[in-house]
């Protein structure tokens, strides 16, 4: 590729702050598998069930954990985030998507939604898509979980 020899070779971007949220247990399992790979500073966060009686759509009550089980704070995580990705396999986490979205919108950070359809019926997947649609500026339905690391790599997460 002789032409490429004349391109200036230098890094043209800084490290992004990517925050990847697993909204449910299945999604968390997928993220757990890939989180140990070398990433460019991406934070993998699992949404834990809201405490009884707490409004799941309120970010103040959102319970998050890092892959090692340590707690995380959504406001702190999203303060400097460039990329926010919500990953979901079922619809039980609709409220938490809204809670994260409110904080991201306040910070003017775009959200990508990823519905994992592997092993799911079309009906369930459609419900997942519908639950993410209000918050995502791009929404992807992936038939296989391998797409998650492919997408994160592409986005330099």
């Amino acid at each position, binding site marked *: *590729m002789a032409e490429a020899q004349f391109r200036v070779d230098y890094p*043209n971007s800084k490290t992004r702050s990517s925050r990847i949220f697993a909204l449910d247990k299945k999604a968390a399992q997928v993220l757990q598998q890939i989180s140990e790979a070398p990433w460019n500073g991406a934070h993998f966060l699992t949404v834990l069930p809201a405490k009884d009686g707490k409004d799941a759509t309120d970010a103040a009550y959102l319970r998050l954990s890092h892959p090692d089980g340590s707690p995380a704070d959504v406001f702190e995580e999203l303060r400097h985030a460039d990329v926010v990705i919500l990953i979901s396999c079922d619809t039980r986490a609709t409220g938490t998507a809204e809670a994260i979205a409110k904080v991201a919108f306040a910070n003017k950070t*775009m959200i990508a939604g990823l519905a994992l359809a592997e092993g799911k019926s079309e009906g369930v997947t459609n419900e997942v898509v519908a639950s993410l*649609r209000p918050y995502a500026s*791009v*929404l992807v*339905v992936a038939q296989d979980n391998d797409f998650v690391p*492919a997408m994160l*790599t*592409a986005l330099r997460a």
Partner: protein
Amino acid sequence: MLRKEVNDLLTQTDPGTPMGDMFRQYWIPALLSSELPENDCDPVRVKLLGERLIAFRDTEGRLGLIDEFCAHRGVSLWFGRNEEGGLRCPYHGWKFDHTGQCIEVPSEAPESGFCEKIKLQGYPLVQIGDVLWTHMGEKDTRPELPEWEFSTVPAEQTFTSKRWQESNWLQAMEGGIDSSHVSFLHSGGLNSDPLFKGAKGNAYNLADKKPVFEVTESDGGLFIGARRNAEDGNFYWRITPWVMPSFSMVPPRGDHPVHGHFWIPIDDENCMAWSYDYHPTRALSTDERQAMMDGHGVHCEYVPGTFQPLQNKYNDYMMDRAAQRRGDTYSGVKGIAIQDGSLQESMGPIIDRTKENLVSTDNGIIMARHRLRKAVTALRDKGITPPGTIVSHQKVRSVAKVLGPDDAFAEACVDDLKVRPGQKQTSV
């Protein structure tokens, strides 16, 4: 960002490469039928997937696509004499039939059977619509003939062109599924190009430059939906089907003919951008066909006697800075096709994807690469036939439609996205 090894995997299509093997699973467009207009017409040089070939129509109308070079001394058979049922090398008179079989070696006695031992590589060449299609893979994996709607409607309803693009096929194809560039690069043409203007959907395009995207997988590839604001809280959807490896269809505008593309590798640093326009239910008007021939819409003007665009990198695509400043064209380059081609060629012959910075709205491209990589490796490692080879995967349509705020396009447009013979495209 794409790792170098994956970039190489997807962009290299010469014989023996994994992606080359994958392209060889499909029937691909090789020539316009008008390039071989009659029996014993002039042979035509064709380069496909890194192979230099010669196409000809013999005395009996049989179509041949064979190795360009004579098996004797390697002379190009483009100089050959197309006569009496075969193509004869002008150097020493060796003659080959439409399959590449040598049928005459003048220096040898016919009874010797020598010529039966000589055969050039040959591929089938079949006319469907106004395109000649070939399959460059093994005969035992040859799929059924393609049935893309644009090539199966009556001749008066369809028009196809092709142009040489000096870039790898993948960056050209990725442009075809990158819906977000339309509101910028092509904004100048939406209300002026005779093959686009007047559609109500154009106003939605121009008013909302931040579409929201949804990407879903189909049996043959992807559906990429771009959602823009419409009236009363509804959304204007433009849905682009992509079928592996390199077919796409642009969402329609009003009752204009529907158009789309194939991007077929010539070699790793060149591709042929095929552009079709058709209407599912009516003949193209005289004005429409003339506009296509004049290079409007997705078509282009040519350097006479070639498939090289008249606006090309050697004349800076006839860049018009004044038109760019006025906003007549967003990039200063005239015409949809060359607006795309100029920018894709400017990336270099094969873009170094390790340096790109994709964002979330590029997820259609990310998913297409992912599906291609999976298909290539499944074929290479397990012999699994890739998607897009079977006819049912080809029976897709693009869609432009206004949907309610809660409608999912994949559900709401399930019928619109299929070929429905005798029914118009779904368009706004």
